[in-house]
């Protein structure tokens, strides 16, 4: 069920990633201020946007879980947050590389955008031990959903707070007083954003498909009265 449409989605993702990489390196002009280093922008910023939106999407699925009590939504929420955390790791590493190349430092503690993303990332990093600490699966799912909703609401609030802060260092991508990016850069950026969004969707679907397959094998084992096989995870929700 979850695997339906995974193949065309994967092909679209690979095609979009290839297109965006081609645009980044062969079409987008060099930035007058940062030069070649600015190419990291087309990777780092889409990853950050998709990661943050993924956290919010995880919160929306958690709301659906709390409203309907359907464990499927808990699995969606868990997987959305899981993939967004992985994207978050990539954001922090690529951001640190960009910072080192651009500012000469791996990390700048007085830059609100960097620190706020780290806070959001660390907040979501506690999602796993929080989930793991609860034995009962129903309570685990409910509490994890409450966490996902609260943390999901924190993400846009945090984003707005950072936008309101007067930063001198971190570049603003959209709606700058100088008029924002030129057309070629904007097109490349939008393609990169679409590629990352597709990649996130594909990985979420892939993960859900694997969980569904695993859940169905467990159901089969129970139906056959067979002993449980392998080490089953207590933290990840089952789907069928």
């Amino acid at each position: 069920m979850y695997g339906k449409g995974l193949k065309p989605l994967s092909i679209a993702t690979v095609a979009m990633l290839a297109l965006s990489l081609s645009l980044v390196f062969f079409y987008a002009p060099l930035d007058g201020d940062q030069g070649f280093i600015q190419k990291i922008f087309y990777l780092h910023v889409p990853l950050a946007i998709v990661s943050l939106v993924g956290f919010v999407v995880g919160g929306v699925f958690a709301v659906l879980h709390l409203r309907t009590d359907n464990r499927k939504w808990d699995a969606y929420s868990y997987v959305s947050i899981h993939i967004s955390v992985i994207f978050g790791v990539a954001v922090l590493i690529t951001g640190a590389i960009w910072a080192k190349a651009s500012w000469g430092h791996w990390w700048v503690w007085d830059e609100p955008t960097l620190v706020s993303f780290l806070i959001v990332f660390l907040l979501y990093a506690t999602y796993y031990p929080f989930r793991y600490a609860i034995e009962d699966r129903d309570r685990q799912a409910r509490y994890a959903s409450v966490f996902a909703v609260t943390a999901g609401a924190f993400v846009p609030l945090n984003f707005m707070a950072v936008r309101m802060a007067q930063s001198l260092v971190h570049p603003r991508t959209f709606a700058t007083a100088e008029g924002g990016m030129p057309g070629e850069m904007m097109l490349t950026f939008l393609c990169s954003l679409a590629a990352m969004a597709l990649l996130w969707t594909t990985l979420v679907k892939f993960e859900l498909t694997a969980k569904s397959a695993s859940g169905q094998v467990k159901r089969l084992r129970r139906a056959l009265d067979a002993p449980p096989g392998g080490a089953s995870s207590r933290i990840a929700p089952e789907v069928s």
Partner: protein
Amino acid sequence: MDLLLAAPALPLDEAGKYVAGAYVVFVVLLVVYVAIMAAKVQRIERELSDVAAIAEEKKEAQAAPGRGSEAPFASRGSGGGGTDV
């Protein structure tokens, strides 16, 4: 802060290393994730073949009435399938 703002663009040969590093990190993370998922899929495949073997064993035990009660899972109930969602 002003020093950071005034930092000039790096020359191409030096900037290239950083850009390559960032994209390599992304690809490595992706490959690691795919490798972990591949291991998971392999485990599911192994479990599925175990379950298939048990199902066949059970079917054979049911087909041979004399051996029915000796079969490992024949004397127990069906279990009911469970609800995971």
